[in-house]
């Protein structure tokens, strides 16, 4: 494992007892590869992320471009777009989430098995973007499901999506199987499914999941 992840809070794996990274590299030059099962597990998972095949708006076109030969998301092992949420690891929310669509997106998220990750791609999925004040636009998918990686842009270029994907890979590699740094889905008290909002008379009911989303406080003069 020669790459050094840059995720904050990342600590190198204890490969074998008290051996240091320098010693590991030294051994590697002599043809001896030392690793741990945990590290191997994370490496395997991070290189076979299967995204859910669905798109909501123009960002989906960039997502499709990322899957084509020019940008080739297959280099990162994420080319197998699954048409069923039961087989997917990653939800790329690509585009404007309308209030009419939001319950279906949450339902798809609930149908995905753990471990699962979510990328909010583009300004609309992050905050509503240029359509924020629209009567039918959800102001960010993080009001209803937990988001791991935010990719800004309108729309983000395929390179940006690939960068977001590699960031997610680093996040997955940093996850532990047990202990306080264990992955989110291995901690017993974290939720895997989230309530699907209902259609109200003017807005979704509730308009956001209070356990996930609280509006930032803006200390501004009135």
């Amino acid at each position, binding site marked *: 494992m020669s790459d050094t992840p840059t995720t904050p809070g990342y600590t190198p794996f204890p490969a074998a007892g008290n051996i240091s990274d320098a010693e590991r590299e030294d051994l590697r030059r002599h043809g001896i590869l030392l690793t741990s099962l945990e590290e191997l597990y994370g490496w395997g998972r991070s290189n076979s992320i299967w995204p859910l095949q669905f798109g909501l708006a123009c960002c989906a076109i960039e997502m499709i471009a990322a899957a084509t030969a020019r940008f080739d998301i297959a280099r990162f092992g994420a080319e197998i777009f699954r048409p069923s949420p039961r087989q997917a690891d990653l939800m790329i929310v690509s585009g404007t989430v309308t209030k009419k669509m939001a319950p279906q997106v949450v339902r798809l998220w609930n149908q995905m098995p753990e471990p699962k990750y979510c990328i909010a791609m583009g300004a609309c999925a992050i905050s509503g973007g240029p359509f924020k004040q629209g009567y039918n636009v959800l102001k960010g998918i993080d009001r209803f499901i937990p988001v791991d990686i935010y990719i800004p842009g309108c729309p983000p270029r395929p390179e940006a999506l690939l960068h977001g994907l590699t960031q997610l890979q680093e996040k997955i590699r940093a996850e532990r199987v047990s202990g306080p740094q264990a992955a989110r889905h291995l901690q017993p008290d974290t939720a895997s499914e989230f309530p699907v909002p209902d259609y109200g008379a*003017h807005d979704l009911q509730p308009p956001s999941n209070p356990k996930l989303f609280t509006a930032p406080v803006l200390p501004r003069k009135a």
Partner: protein
Amino acid sequence: METLEQIRDRLLARFPAAKVELVTNPGTAAEHSLLLDAVFAPEIARFLRDDPALRLDYCSNVSGVDWPEKEITDTVKKSVPDPAGGPDKVVEEKTKRIQPGCLEAVYHLYSMTLKHGPVVLRLRTGNRTDQVTLPSLTPVWRAADFQEREIFDLYGIIFSGHPDLRRILMWDEFKDHPMRKDYVSPDDFEWEPTPHGDVHERAKAHYPAPPPAATPTPEAKP
């Protein structure tokens, strides 16, 4: 193709009881239109479609317009004789009148067989509250189906005779019609990073109360 005046005159000759008005467009586009009597609209539409000289067989677009109630000030200049014997004074008399509001459906018609168009038709409702029914032209042009549903959804015009009049963009439980000028969107302005205009006014309601003024700072003058 005949001019719009000629079409109007032929319609008036054919349907003597109907009221057909020419609405001129003062802009550079000069795309004038015919305001039809709503009661006779289906018959007139069928005539325009089947008339051998017109053959307007293609309805390319149907759109809705909301005309809210508007106060109009008419200014009339009057010359009043000066009692002192001087020259006449010009006095402006201003009268205010209320132009009643209405909802409007606009149809753009072309002829595929004769390669001409467009002819623009307008239908107006009696008011914006209880007389909002217009005859549907979907039986004449099938292309109007989804677009009349959209107008019903967003403006609230009820098209009688439409085969399947349901909401198309908003969810079924939605109340109100969001493209009307007086629609007020739900108050979810709790987090607006760069508010301005009306959004700023509404976002202010969510700002935290300013901290109570601590002990008033005494003037530093001895």
